[in-house]
């Protein structure tokens, strides 16, 4: 049973609450923080009907997508959360009973989502052989969980991380890996082609998984996937199921601007995009908490999630 906080949460308080959650726990996934914000918003909301509550939640979702944190996974996480909690019989005459039901379903969704990373770790470990050399891109907490799980299963891997400009988050990833006892080396983004012959497998996280089975991820991912395909190395994308998006980009320029740039105005070439789109033909498998999927199975899962 939830406690009803005395003051109603306004739409504008959503982003500060969201950002304080992320600062409090740097390991938390941005989508989970967004869902927790929505749960808090729902608890402290003063709507009297389900329709009003849903519309308030949608307003809060729009607010959350204006923050610059990983817009793709926030968007998909919120959308799927809303779908999940409303996908039940809400025909009780008393609104408070309905709201209670929504909150319970929300807690359930949050629990499942929070365990997603661990599930992925267990599913992905059989694909990493002992002594493998792995190339990863930038900083991804899901990939980190997977590699730590492999280390726990006594698989001694060597990891190469791309430096990943502009924010150089490759160095942070290297530090986390070294703390877990995994030897990790940072390479230049431009050295991906050079190192590829020594690599056994390529792995990256995803900010969003699109309907075609392709992924949206930090800029440089597509380049790495193309080089890996040319060198015949397997490419694995690791993503939780709440990152599945209802979008279908046809090429790089069709990927939505709001994911690519912090200010979603149409841009000329003076601004650098933050993410790129990797088509499904370059991805061998996707490790998700639902199952290990081929890119063509993503559409099947999306249809199941959304219908």
């Amino acid at each position, binding site marked *: 049973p939830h406690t009803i906080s005395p003051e109603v949460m306004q739409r504008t308080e959503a982003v500060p609450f969201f950002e304080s959650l992320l600062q409090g726990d740097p390991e938390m996934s941005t989508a989970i923080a967004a869902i927790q914000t929505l749960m808090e918003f729902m608890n402290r909301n003063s709507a009297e009907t389900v329709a009003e509550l849903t519309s308030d939640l949608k307003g809060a979702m729009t607010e959350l997508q204006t923050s610059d944190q990983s817009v793709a996974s926030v968007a998909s996480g919120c959308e799927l959360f809303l779908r999940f909690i409303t996908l039940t019989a809400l025909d009780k005459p008393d609104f408070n009973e309905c709201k209670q039901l929504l909150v319970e379903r929300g807690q359930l969704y949050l629990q499942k989502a929070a365990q997603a990373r661990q599930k992925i770790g267990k599913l992905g470990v059989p694909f990493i052989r002992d002594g493998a050399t792995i190339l990863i891109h930038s900083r991804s907490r899901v990939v980190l969980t997977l590699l730590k799980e492999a280390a726990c299963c006594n698989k001694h891997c060597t990891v190469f991380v791309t430096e990943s400009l502009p924010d150089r988050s490759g160095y942070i990833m290297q530090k986390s890996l070294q703390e877990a006892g995994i030897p990790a080396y940072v390479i230049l983004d431009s050295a991906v082609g050079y190192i590829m012959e020594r690599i056994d497998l390529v792995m990256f996280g995803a900010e969003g998984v699109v309907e075609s089975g392709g992924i949206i991820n930090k800029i440089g991912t597509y380049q790495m996937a193309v080089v890996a395909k040319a060198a015949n190395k397997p490419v694995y994308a690791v993503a939780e199921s709440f990152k599945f998006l209802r979008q279908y980009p046809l090429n790089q320029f069709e990927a939505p601007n709001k994911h690519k740039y912090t200010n979603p105005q149409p841009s000329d070439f003076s601004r650098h995009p933050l993410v790129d789109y990797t088509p499904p033909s370059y991805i061998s498998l996707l490790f998700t908490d639902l199952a290990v999927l081929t890119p063509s199975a993503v559409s099947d899962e999306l*249809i199941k999630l959304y*219908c």
Partner: protein
Amino acid sequence: MRRLVQHGIPCSYVLLNALSYVMKEVSKVFLGAHALLANGYVMSRVGTSLVALVASSYNVPVLFCCETYKCCDRVQTDSFVFNELGDPEDLASAQSNGACSKLEGWRDIQQLNVLNLVYDLTPPDFITMVITEVGMIPCSSVPVVLRVIHSV
């Protein structure tokens, strides 16, 4: 093309022979389909797979517009194993000026046959996306659509 022009859309008419010449000006290709097969192949009017092939070699996205009732659970991998024959006279008498067609007397020549195939098959490698009334799907998702439709 007449209908497009009536709606005010600027159009250019080209022969299939000119495809590789115009393809670099093209940003997207829209094609229709007669059937979506369960293995991701698309059966359509002959010439469609040619357009899709040239477009994919120039990295131009190929989009098929097709209703879901055209999804069928047959599987086919080439255009020859199952097709329809059209009237060979359509090919033999086709001419652009008033002169006689070169193929006019083809029936009299024993070694000559005129083959007018109606359909051809486009492989899924050339198809970027299929647009149906229920949404945009990759062509490998046709069995999923069939499953959803038959379960309802």
